[in-house]
């Protein structure tokens, strides 16, 4: 019974080109996951607080204000309808207005997001540039002291509270040694010196040709970025190592060595070539992780990114801003997740 059904399905599918099915499935999966995310944030924002109106107007508001806000929020409608309105708003990038500064949350997020993007991107670059070679060397020289060092580096990375390591970095490299700039994106004399084109201060300074600003901004970003880089490095180097070990124990490697190929070519042209897809998947995942991990880092370094935005909003009970930020981070996270999944399917024929 089950078998015949499987056959029938197989025939139906055969009539469509495979990419149609893959695309449809992926789109469906993105849609369902995002709907789930919105459902959860909807529950958090509308259902969990005992009275969402009171959260906005405060306890001393008059009855008429209360009623007006009650209707404005659409709370007189059934939950399903409210949810539908919520999805509609989010699709139009309308997360409501911030209770703190009365500006649209989406504008605020667009303003703070480049700072996080810049930080996380530099972080992942550091993590990849150091983590991948470290993982490869650890795999090639399994059991050597390099391997042990890589192991300890990763173990410490998994066990260290990121905000504490950030504080210690600030204490040592800023407070005692004075090698790097302190908290914030640039020193106070360099604020708003270069015109904001991309919102990424390093890029803006380079475009403007203002290398003083560039140097100053770099001295501010390097410590938090290295911190994030270290945490992604821990994960990336471990994964690289285990992927490489798997390849190096394969028979084609033995064949290549028997042919007399140099060890460098065996490692980089044969084994490494075969782990590239898996590696990109891992890097995409840790990039998503960094966007999230930047929340605590941003607090420590007074970095005006989305993590600081969400936390500040949280402490002042600005629910619209919190949920707007959560939805944006969540969407990016989901997209990167699915992107890495997809990459795997497209480039690794074995996954089909």
């Amino acid at each position: 019974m089950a078998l015949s059904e499987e056959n029938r399905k197989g025939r139906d599918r055969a009539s469509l080109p495979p990419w149609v099915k893959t695309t449809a499935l992926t789109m469906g999966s993105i849609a369902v996951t995002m709907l789930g995310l919105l459902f959860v944030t909807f529950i958090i924002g509308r259902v969990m607080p005992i009275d969402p109106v009171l959260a906005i107007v405060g306890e001393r508001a008059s009855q008429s204000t209360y009623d007006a806000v009650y209707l404005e929020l659409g709370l007189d409608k059934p939950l399903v309808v409210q949810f539908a309105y919520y999805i509609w708003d989010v699709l139009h990038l309308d997360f409501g207005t911030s209770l703190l500064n009365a500006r649209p949350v989406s504008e605020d997020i667009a303003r703070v997001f480049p700072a996080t993007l810049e930080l996380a991107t530099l972080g992942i670059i550091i993590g990849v540039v150091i983590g991948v070679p470290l993982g490869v060397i650890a795999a090639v020289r399994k059991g050597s002291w390099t391997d042990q060092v890589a192991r300890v580096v990763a173990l410490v990375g998994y066990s260290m509270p990121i905000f504490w390591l950030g504080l210690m970095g600030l204490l040592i490299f800023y407070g005692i040694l004075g090698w790097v700039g302190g908290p914030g994106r640039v020193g106070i004399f360099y604020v708003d010196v270069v015109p904001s084109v991309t919102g990424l201060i390093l890029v803006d300074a380079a475009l403007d040709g203002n290398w003083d600003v560039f140097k100053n901004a770099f001295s501010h970003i390097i410590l938090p970025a290295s911190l994030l880089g270290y945490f992604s490095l821990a994960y990336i180097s471990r994964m690289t190592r285990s992927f490489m070990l798997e390849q190096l124990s394969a028979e084609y490697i033995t064949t290549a060595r028997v042919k007399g190929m140099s060890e460098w070519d065996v490692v980089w042209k044969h084994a490494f070539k075969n782990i590239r897809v898996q590696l990109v998947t891992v890097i995409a995942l840790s990039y998503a992780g960094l966007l999230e991990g930047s929340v605590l880092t941003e607090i420590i370094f007074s970095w005006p990114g989305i993590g600081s935005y969400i936390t500040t909003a949280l402490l002042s009970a600005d629910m619209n801003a919190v949920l707007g930020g959560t939805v944006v981070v969540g969407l990016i996270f989901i997209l990167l997740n699915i992107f890495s999944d997809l990459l795997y399917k497209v480039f690794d024929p074995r996954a089909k």
Partner: protein
Amino acid sequence: MAEQTLRAWLLTDTPSSRRHAKLSALYQGWLSFRSNTMAMVGLGILIALMLIAAAAPLLSPHDPFVQDLGNRLAPLGTEGHILGTDSLGRDILSRLIYGARITLYIVALVALIAPVVGLLVGTVSGYVGGWVDIVLMRITDIFLAFPRLVLALAFVAALGAGIENAVIAISLTAWPPYARIARAETLTIRSSDYISAIQLQGAGGFRIITKHIWPLCISSLIVRVTLDMAGIILAAAGLGFLGLGAQPPSPEWGAMISEGRRFILDHWWVATMPGLAIFTVSLAFNLLGDGLRDVLDPKAGE
């Protein structure tokens, strides 16, 4: 001599009873675990942590809540305050010792909630199959795709700050991997012959899941929980640091770091000491988890 015979009894190849066989297997697992030095170090640290937490009133030199404003921010090695005092003159060592209780409390609660939820969802999903499986796994996937810390932040924002709410928020974001593992185990177990045999004997789904599938899922779940504990401690400390977990004057380690942050450049020890405590405990869980994985699930090792 008596020990020698006990050892021989435990290592026998021909166990005389079910209990004997169980104890023997346990002992052999312990022997291979014991040879892993790092795992033993981790275990030692955690046992010490439990003892410290249990004997906190006896061990701590001062009351962790008593303020002494005349003696605030005393440095390391001060007479009577080995680890110094914080901004309100409270003894840091005593606060660390009492903080061990809070850490263990959080870890224990999350370790009770998240794996149990995951086990329930995963085994039901795997055993029942069909639509139930599709729906439950879709929900699991959705939760897996979420950014955990940010979601926990949003939960705490709606529920209000506090240890219990932090635990709920962390558990809500921690259960999906357990559901995945439990489902995978259930799928392999479900199709085995002995399950068919007890089905023929008339065993119902409830009995099969609770008596035959759960026991076999436990060992891989324990490994995963131990490895996750480090992450849970870090998440709890992070929430505490943001002021969303344990509330002052509670000596929670993350909250203590946040307090010391204001004086980091002049009085570094106030924030450094609780951070070292968090690092030590989460390192211990990682070491123990690695060791347990090697014993209980040797395939996943390399």
